[in-house]
């Protein structure tokens, strides 16, 4: 038993058991209730077997004769009957708690919620804050901003294979199935950044398909959204200007969008506000100049099999490109 607590105490967070929202908290409550029930059951059954074993143990080298005495069976039948009944009652209790927790988790709702569309791609997440006016639509990648304490609706679908959207601190997971679009609710109560990851095997880079949920105050969220709505600024320095030129004449432009320029392909993440994100490559690398450079030159070393091609840029071109990308706040 002590082993459980030693192992449980190792550094790192038990994300499932550190809920940041009401749904996660409900599930955590259910987890602990069921856990303790099951632990009691386990201890009782193990004690039963060890006690039975000790009681009946007969040291003998040879083969003992068969017992034909059936006098204990009547009592045993009663005991087994009672044990089975208790099992059934326990299961009913678990079923009951499951159903009410399920209702609570799925019952989250509000009027005029913020809607966020999450599209799974091999191996990154496209995040869209849809709006009836195209110029009011925010498109970003791998980073979901939302206001704390407010239920939001997540609309999901998949661009290719099945993915599964899972932020353990917030809520359980939901599969993203091609051909289906589903909606579910989510709410985060504590400000902070929460890690999430694809949970359904989706091919070569399933391991590197993370995202983060940034929960912030209403004001911060609104400011973030305002910023994201702007097109990319004009380059302010000659280096950045040349960097944009590099972007538009090399492979970058084939896959990425930077609003305000000619780059408009939707194959890869929208880079209009790349510099505002904390991580790149679906939560694989920190968004630093060095990491970005390494990623641009040889993404296949970092995420073998991903869909971004290596770019053999001249050192000067690369420096300018990085300078330009850093202006995309």
């Amino acid at each position: 038993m002590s082993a459980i607590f030693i192992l449980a105490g190792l550094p790192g967070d038990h994300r499932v058991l550190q809920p940041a929202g009401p749904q996660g908290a409900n599930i955590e409550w259910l987890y602990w209730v069921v856990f303790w029930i099951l632990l009691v059951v386990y201890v009782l059954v193990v004690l039963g077997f060890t006690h039975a074993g000790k009681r009946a143990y007969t040291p003998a080298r040879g083969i003992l004769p068969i017992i034909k005495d059936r006098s204990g069976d009547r009592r045993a039948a009663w005991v087994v009957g009672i044990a089975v009944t208790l099992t059934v009652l326990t299961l009913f209790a678990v079923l009951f708690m499951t159903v009410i927790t399920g209702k609570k988790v799925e019952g989250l709702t509000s009027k005029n919620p913020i809607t966020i569309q999450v599209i799974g791609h091999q191996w990154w997440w496209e995040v869209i804050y849809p709006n009836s006016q195209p110029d009011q639509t925010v498109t970003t990648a791998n980073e979901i901003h939302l206001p704390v304490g407010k239920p939001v609706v997540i609309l999901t679908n998949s661009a290719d294979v099945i993915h599964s959207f899972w932020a353990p601190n917030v809520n359980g997971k939901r599969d993203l199935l091609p051909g289906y679009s589903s909606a579910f609710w989510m709410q985060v109560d504590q400000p902070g950044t929460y890690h999430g990851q694809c949970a359904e095997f989706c091919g070569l880079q399933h391991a590197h398909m993370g995202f983060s949920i940034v929960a912030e105050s209403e004001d911060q969220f609104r400011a973030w959204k305002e910023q994201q709505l702007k097109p990319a600024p004009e380059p302010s320095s000659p280096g950045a200007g040349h960097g944009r030129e590099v972007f538009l004449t090399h492979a970058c432009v084939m896959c990425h969008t930077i609003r305000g320029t000619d780059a408009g392909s939707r194959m890869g993440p929208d880079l209009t506000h790349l510099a505002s994100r904390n991580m790149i490559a679906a939560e694989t690398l920190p968004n630093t100049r060095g990491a970005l450079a390494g990623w641009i030159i040889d993404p296949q070393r970092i995420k073998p099999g991903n869909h971004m091609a290596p770019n053999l840029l001249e050192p000067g071109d690369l420096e300018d490109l990085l300078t330009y990308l850093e202006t995309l706040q």
Partner: protein
Amino acid sequence: MLLLLGAMILTGCKREERDLRPSPPASVTINTAQVSGLNPGANSVPPPPPPNIYEESAYSVSEGKRLYDQYNCVGCHAHGGGGIGPPLMDNNWIYGSEPQNIFATIIQGRPNGMPSFRNRIPEYQAWEIVAYVRSLSGLLPSDVAPAHNDELYMKPSEQSMPKQTPTGVTGQPEKSQ
């Protein structure tokens, strides 16, 4: 059983190769002369073309297919049926059907609308697209050609198309129109 295994060994190894960190075939040089003329060096004997290693891997050909869609080749050539650009699934080749001919077409562009993708499409990806384009007209064995995509059905999949013998294999332009 042994025969089957033998066959699998012969075809299997390369077909399943997944080179996740590809480097373009170094020896390939593009004959720039091809751009200018419609009938390049018909009388001179060209050196034997280096094989396109991407044609031996089913993974590369399927990558080529994905890129073909995503780089919007579909826009002009449709799924091989042609539209603004010429069809790719028949056996008429204006600039030749050898891998390096098609590669040159992609990288350098051609008159009358085919843009140049130099610098924009990395060479290894261009070679993958070349392999896919060749599979469209049945020039590749069916066990590397990709199966159908999960999209609206337009044509039989590449792997189930009959193998065709193109008429323009030497780089001789087909006398179309």
